[in-house]
């Protein structure tokens, strides 16, 4: 991310004004809309950081590239959403990404789950991409023009992420005994965190027409994943539901180390640029 306040030494642009707007709106969001944008932006930022941890470690070079590209798309969504969220309180996207503590983050627990083995990452990606697809597909019709604009852009990208996850789910589930065993274990481990994505919070009562009520996305999500699960011969585990709490700033033990890695450079070298 770039910081509008910083002086980027190698670029001689002193004579010009650069507008940093990502979205065509001069009106800052209400505190409620900003909070909702923060939820979505934090989901994208945390998942992008997780996926980035695979770079140089994926099973094959093409997958390094794929996961990095998906992370880059998500980082783009995060930047637009955090910029919009921050404009309500005169904070930049970097202020929000680098200078909030763990309790200030509003991401759901699914996104902060550890990468685990490759099957864990793919199962998490399968849930995340299908959820984000059905969410952004509906959010395109938001009465908030900025959220609608971000969603219309993002839905096309997460559609591609969805296809990537689907193909890996089939390949892993129908591959070797070992890949199938690991996929089943990953489903057991990851799926308890899916429920939180469809949990309504009181904030939604104030955002009629602006936000998508999470509980109304479950049917579309189930229909979206069903053909893939059927083809892969997989059944969802009848597992417990993890407690969640991400929207209220309550996180699992995994978020803090992720944030430490994300924030360390900005905090140790304030104003660093390259």
């Amino acid at each position, binding site marked *: 991310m770039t910081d509008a306040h910083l002086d980027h030494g190698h670029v001689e642009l002193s004579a010009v004004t650069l507008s940093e707007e990502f979205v065509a709106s001069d009106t800052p969001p209400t505190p409620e809309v900003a909070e909702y944008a923060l939820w979505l932006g934090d989901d994208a930022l945390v998942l992008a950081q997780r996926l980035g941890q695979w770079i140089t470690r994926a099973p094959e070079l093409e997958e390094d590239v794929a996961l990095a590209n998906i992370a880059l798309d998500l980082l*783009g969504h995060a930047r637009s959403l955090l910029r919009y969220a921050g404009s309500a309180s005169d904070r930049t996207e970097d202020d929000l990404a680098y200078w909030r503590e763990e309790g200030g983050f509003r991401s759901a627990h699914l996104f902060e789950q550890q990468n685990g083995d490759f099957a864990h990452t793919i199962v998490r990606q399968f849930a995340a991409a299908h959820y984000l697809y059905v969410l952004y597909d509906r959010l395109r019709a938001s009465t908030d023009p900025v959220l609608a604009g971000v969603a219309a*852009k993002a839905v096309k*990208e997460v559609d591609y992420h969805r296809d990537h996850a689907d193909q890996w789910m089939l390949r892993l589930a129908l591959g070797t005994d070992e890949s199938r065993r690991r996929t089943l274990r990953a489903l057991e481990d990851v799926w308890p965190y899916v429920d939180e994505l469809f949990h309504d919070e009181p904030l939604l009562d104030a955002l009629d027409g602006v936000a998508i009520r999470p509980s109304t996305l479950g049917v579309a999500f189930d229909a979206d994943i069903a053909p893939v699960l059927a083809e892969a011969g997989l059944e969802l585990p009848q597992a417990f539901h993890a407690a969640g709490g991400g929207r209220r700033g309550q996180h699992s033990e995994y978020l803090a180390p992720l944030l430490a890695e994300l924030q360390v450079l900005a905090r140790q070298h304030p104003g660093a640029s390259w």
Partner: protein
Amino acid sequence: MVTHHADAGRAWSAAAAVVDPEVPVLSIDDLGVLREVTVSNGGVDVVITPTYSGCPAMDAIREDVVRALASAGFADVRVRLVLSPAWTTDWISAAGRSALKDYGIAPPSAAGPVRLSLSVKCPHCGSLDTREVAHFGSTSCKALFVCTGCGEPFDHFKAL
């Protein structure tokens, strides 16, 4: 009073000549990234849109637009990045598609995204007997293919 009409045309031409740093045969006009150039009282407002949300080339394109306009005599330049309406590969011009092919990148189909059914033509030998090696390629906008006919790998500009 300067003739704004002539200025507007000159400003557009200057901005339109900027090329995509990742695919330097493609101007941002041919790519569909340049959306609007308006001139008022000597200042220029430029609107560009990213191909992909996280496209890191946007910062370079923004700086190149400012430089190109400065060379054309416009000192007061504002570049605004907008997301809506969302960029689509349908906005790549015919000249742009042809330039991509000559550069060795298979251009996107004109019909928007199509799942796995249409063959991608090899930009080297023209064969339709090609296969996708990886969903993602060297930049956000590309996938990696290989031609069964001539055996060469190539990038495919994904339809979006």
